[in-house]
């Protein structure tokens, strides 16, 4: 009796579980199709401007001013011209590239040194009124950079520092340090204080503790912040444009923007220059991507 009832109930149950599975499978299929479509749209959206740079850089002058979507005779002449400084707008290309590297290196090193010292003093040595400095950094972080450009330029002009790359370095270090201090502060919170204490009891000076204990343990954060500072310097344009005016002191982005002023802009050379300029940050970015993503969320995006 009981068995019959059980069997009677079992059959429809199997039916519904089958339909459920079919619905689930169909839903997964729709989900995957939708995801695939979205992925295709994202790839097209992301790559069109990049494709445009590559395509134009391979074009000849006549291709640039035509309606092709791939150059008829793709050639690397544009790149060769840039590398050999064979165009009058590019006569100082390597010098300007050197300026960009100098700028990036100086901003990175100064940012790392200044902000790690600051965060060591506030977080590890707990200097009095350290919170004031943290707030100052926070305030700097939320001021729009371009809003300070006009007074900053006038001040540099008053001190005769226009057309001097150190004026740009000062500005960019100012804007990079606040974020660096936060990252260091958060990362250092996970390093036990006992390490500092025992070193101190053994007679280490604060500088020795900073140099021999703090810095080596902070390595991942230093890499993350270093990458951030380098990319910031490489991305920045406004301050470099305002403060660097002569061809010898210019960096690559300023020179690139100057191309636009010529009567008929040589787009193929510009895009070749753009690719050569964009390669280092892209390589650095992909090389340190994991570290950087970790750095961006270091200390937890706890919401």
């Amino acid at each position, binding site marked *: 009796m009981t068995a019959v009832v059980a069997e009677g109930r079992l059959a429809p149950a199997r039916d519904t579980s089958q339909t459920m599975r079919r619905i689930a499978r169909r839903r997964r299929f729709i989900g995957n199709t939708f995801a695939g479509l979205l992925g295709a749209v994202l790839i097209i959206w992301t790559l069109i401007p990049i494709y445009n740079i590559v395509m134009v850089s391979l074009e000849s002058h006549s291709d640039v001013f035509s309606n092709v979507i791939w150059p008829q005779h793709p050639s690397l002449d544009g790149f060769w011209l840039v590398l050999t400084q064979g165009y009058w707008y590019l006569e100082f290309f390597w010098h300007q590239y050197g300026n960009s590297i100098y700028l990036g290196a100086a901003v990175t090193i100064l940012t790392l040194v200044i*902000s790690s010292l600051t965060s060591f003093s506030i977080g590890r040595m707990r200097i009095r009124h350290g919170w004031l400095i943290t707030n100052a950094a926070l305030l700097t972080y939320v001021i729009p950079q371009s*809003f300070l450009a006009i007074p*900053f330029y006038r001040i540099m002009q008053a001190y005769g520092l226009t057309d001097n790359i150190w004026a740009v370095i000062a500005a960019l270090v100012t804007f990079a340090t606040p974020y660096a201090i936060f990252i260091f502060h958060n990362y250092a919170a996970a390093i036990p204080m006992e390490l500092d204490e025992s070193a101190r009891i053994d007679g280490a000076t604060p500088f020795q503790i900073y140099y021999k204990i703090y810095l080596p343990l902070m390595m991942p954060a230093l890499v993350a912040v270093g990458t951030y500072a380098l990319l910031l310097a490489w991305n920045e344009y406004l301050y470099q444009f305002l403060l660097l005016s002569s061809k010898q002191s210019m960096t690559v982005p300023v020179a690139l923007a100057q191309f636009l002023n010529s009567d008929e802009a040589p787009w193929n050379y510009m895009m070749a220059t753009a690719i050569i300029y964009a390669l280092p940050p892209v390589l650095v970015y992909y090389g340190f991507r994991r570290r950087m993503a970790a750095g961006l969320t270091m200390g937890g995006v706890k919401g």
Partner: protein
Amino acid sequence: MDASQVLDGNRSLARRARSRMFRGSLQGSEYTWALAFVIPYIAIFLIFVIYPVVYGLWLGSDPASYVELFDDPIYQTTIINTALYLAIGVNVKMFLALLLSGFFMRRGWWVKALLMIYVLPWAVPQLPVFISIHWMLNGDYGLLNNLLFELFGIEGPSWLDSHWLALGSVILAYIWKWMPFWTVILLAGRMAIPQEIHEAAKIDGATGIRSFVHVSFPLLANLYLVCTLLSTIFTVGDFNTATFVSGGGPAFSTFTLATLGIRDAFDLAQPRVGVAAVMTALPLVVPLVIILMRKLRTAEVQL
């Protein structure tokens, strides 16, 4: 004396030692060290933040320059542009980034590969890309119209020759450049949500949109708010996008407050009017800064 007392005694000793070493009574030489470590940052803050800010406020304190600013016919368009740029650009970008961060939580190698391509705009320096987009949107020879014609036989418009199309292009270029960055931030925020919460919600029958509305979003809401506010402030100060994608044209119709300020100060050599233009953004920026300072201090959201 039993063990726990010994331990307690040690602990209080350690506490006392720590307070002696790190609190207000840093011994003479240690206090000097701590001070020496923060002095570089304090110097930078005073010279390159406070001084320009005070000087800028002084430059912007002349009522006559505001009269001149409001008489400028471009100014009203600029205000409308800035408002649209912020309202549409920031919010569309952040909302899409929020949705896409959910998409990138999917499993599978191709999603990871797609993410690698998708973050490319973040890695590429701004200037080359915006110049490339400017040329891509050229009505006669640009890639976009060439593609539209080749693929669909459509004669595309001259994107940068009408006010609204040009402004739309600037906003889209801005979204293209910055959406990947915020997607990665929000993705990290999603990953910080414990998996168990989603599983529990699934058992209770919440999947798909309901899981997002009732589980993910409430947990991400604070992060989303902070990101949106920060992004708004960064965007108010954005100079590069409007300068290079539309060049402020056609007929000075796509200026934003940041680009107008720089134009007045440098192209027209009227720094006071330029500062005045920037100052009119303060009623928006100051409340945002105050909210952000509070949020960033308490919520431990770090960017």
